């Protein structure tokens, strides 16, 4: 059941890594976001995928058939925190670009010292 998703996650992680290795900061940020998608999906998949088993309590539904709610809670936290982090990162990037006038990591590195 999880095989197609697993392959898709691998592709996301690989694409994210490729972008992380680029010189443009914007690409690095996008790569990081792809990586976090891959990470969230990994946790989600490791908890096993189930269809039609929404963890909401209703009359006559067996609790054992629920998808794991703890995993979902953890990922929800991760998504929101990830968003906060990404927003912050974006601002830093834009501010840096405004101050330095470049989004090339090699240029930024030479500013050191």
């Amino acid at each position, binding site marked *: 059941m999880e095989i*197609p998703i697993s392959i898709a996650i691998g592709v996301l992680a690989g694409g994210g890594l490729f972008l992380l290795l680029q010189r*443009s900061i*914007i*690409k690095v940020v996008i790569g990081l976001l792809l990586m976090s998608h*891959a990470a969230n999906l*990994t946790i989600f998949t490791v908890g096993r995928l189930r269809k039609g088993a929404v*963890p909401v*309590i209703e009359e006559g539904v067996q609790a054992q058939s629920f998808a794991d709610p703890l995993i979902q809670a953890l990922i929800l936290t991760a998504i929101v925190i990830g968003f906060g982090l990404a*927003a912050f990162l974006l*601002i830093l990037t834009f501010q840096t670009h405004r101050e330095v006038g470049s989004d090339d990591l090699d240029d930024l590195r030479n500013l050191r010292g």
Partner: protein
Amino acid sequence: MILLFFALPMGVGAVLPFLPSLLRRNLGLVSAGVTASLFGLALTQIPRVSDGRPPVFSFDWVPSMGVNLSFLLDGYALFFVLLITGIGSLIFLYSQQYMAHHPHRLKFYSWMLVFAGAMLGLVTSSNLIVLYLFWEMTTISSFFLIGLSDREEGSRWNAVQALVVTTLGSLTMLAGFLLIYVTLGTFELREIWARASELQESPLLIPTVALIIVGAVTKSALFPFHIWLPSAMVAPTPVSAFLHSATMVKAGVFLVARLTPVFVGVAQWEVTLVILGMATLVIGGVLALRQHDLKALLAYSTVSQLGMMVALYGLGTDLAAQAATLHLMSHATFKGAMFLVAGAIEHETGTRDLRRLGGLVGAMPGLAVVATIAALSSGGIPPLSGFVSKEVLLDASLASSGVEGWLLPLVLVVGSVITLTYSLKFLLGAFFGSPRYATQSPQKPSLALVLAPGVMAVAIVTIGVYPALVAGDLISPAVAAITQRPADVSLHLWNGFNLPLALSVVVIVAGIAAYPHIGRINDLLSPATTRGTFVRGYQATVDFTYSAVPRIYWHLQNGDLRRYVVVIILVVMALVTAGLIRADGPPFSDLTKDVDLGVLDYGLAALVGLGGIAIIFRRRRLEAVFNLGFVGILVAAIFALYSAPDLALTQIVVELLMVVLFMLGLRHMLRMFNVSAARSVVALQLVFSAAFGALVTVLLLAVLVTPQHPSISPFFIENTEAVAKAKNVVNTILVDFRGFDTLGEITVVAIAAVAVFAMVRAVRERG
């Protein structure tokens, strides 16, 4: 009560600066009072201890890790307590005069008292971790005392050297202690003694022994770690006498003795200690012969004697333990006295260089008498305590069997001859011969400077003439505590005509005969034993560390983010691959069971994959951002498909916001999105990324075919309605069961929001 031994000196040491000025002028007397009262307290414990009812104290500190504040005042601990407090009192008395005008007087007394407390804690503790803590406290106080004159380059360099060498050893020793814990599950000495056989059968025995020996050997300045002790002589003489001759350097000897019941019979323990000890005895002695500086001579002689004690304790027999314990006491008294004499000479003449000294007997007759007694005791001349202990040493070495049976006595005799010769050099060189004074004419030493070594001299004579005084009440319980067997020690000055006596005569004759030829002996031995070799070795090691570490550091932390990413990913890939290989190929075939996949499953996965690949080829910013949003919405769809509507909703909101944020910023960011890179570099990056992605997939599949741990989710499912009165389990976990976690999360998002707001405002203001 036991706690008083370390708490009182440390407490007093801490409040010294706040004492009224009358007491502050007499810090030596105050400190001597502290140690003397502890000496008295220890004396009252002798009957109890020799009855076999040693006082104990235990308090659970970190019981889950076996760390307890447990103390034991058995015969051996009491022996050391008496030694530390007794010698300590005399040295503090001496310091009252000697340190009277020292610029760092207050610091000196504070650290000396802290040291005394740490040393007393070390010898009374019966938990290895507590022992280690006190051990490090002695190291640290030693560091500050050696570096007392902290404005002087030499003083600092030597302090650092002592710290580096001894800390290296103590950390190694700590690793050894941890191995004991791994084997036995306890740090308690008494339990370790009781379960020694388990330890001896453990496969970890050899590393344990090796690690602990390094600790003992560095602390007691044995070859090849002996270099730090002569360097430590830059400290004021009372420090040298107390820490670096009578007590702290004996901590290694103490540890060896304490672990005798654990490792007795282990060949590696015995052989290593005997060889290292005997080598140190000879090397230290030969080095002592060469010295012209009184304190350097004494330092090397201390190294030499410590070697002998370690060798004897390493033997582990009852007689050897008895001999080493007795010699430990004689050594503390005669070496302490010799140091104090050397200090008095320097104090009055301004030098301690033997080439500029001589004939002091006329100017300082009292000191000369004391020096004679101490030096002759060191040389093993009857009727002094050094003679008695040397007899027992010879006796113990003769009792050993095999190769040791003749090699050990032989080395011991050679070592004793050397010892007698340098003791004569110390005594005759300074006090006899034609009067040669240094720059200033000698003043008569004040009473306090003679009194303290004088009391030691009295003890040397008393114990020498009447050794039974200490045999029954002091040495017997100490030996019993070391060997964990009842011991009955009887000592006599005169043991009849026997082999040890004959050997003693040989030693005395040879030693006296060798004295006039000391110069020639030194010339003969000089190439092999120059101090420079070892110091250069130490310096080279330190220099190498100083130059290599920055090079490695700047190589790894060069500021290039992409290199960090590559290193991190490579390490992760290596670890994951190694793990997968070790797992021996998980049963991937299980994955094809229970397949229930429709068009939707394949379609979503394919679209996500397509999005992930397409995004890396986007050459325009907007396209890339929309592509990212596309992937995000697909991820939300996956959440929705597999029973996670809450996640899907959150993901959609976040994704929309993200795109808006990007648009806001990108408006002002026009250039430099695409930086051209060489084709080969891009190809390499593609291959690397593809390999990483493939490995992630394989790892994920491997995890999926491994059986799942039982989840704790049933708890949340059961209690959502029952306790929280809610229906949606995911939401309830977030806002109820893990409410504080979510509060923290909200805080983070709020901070990010403030930053975003600041940016938006800045953009608007600048247009």
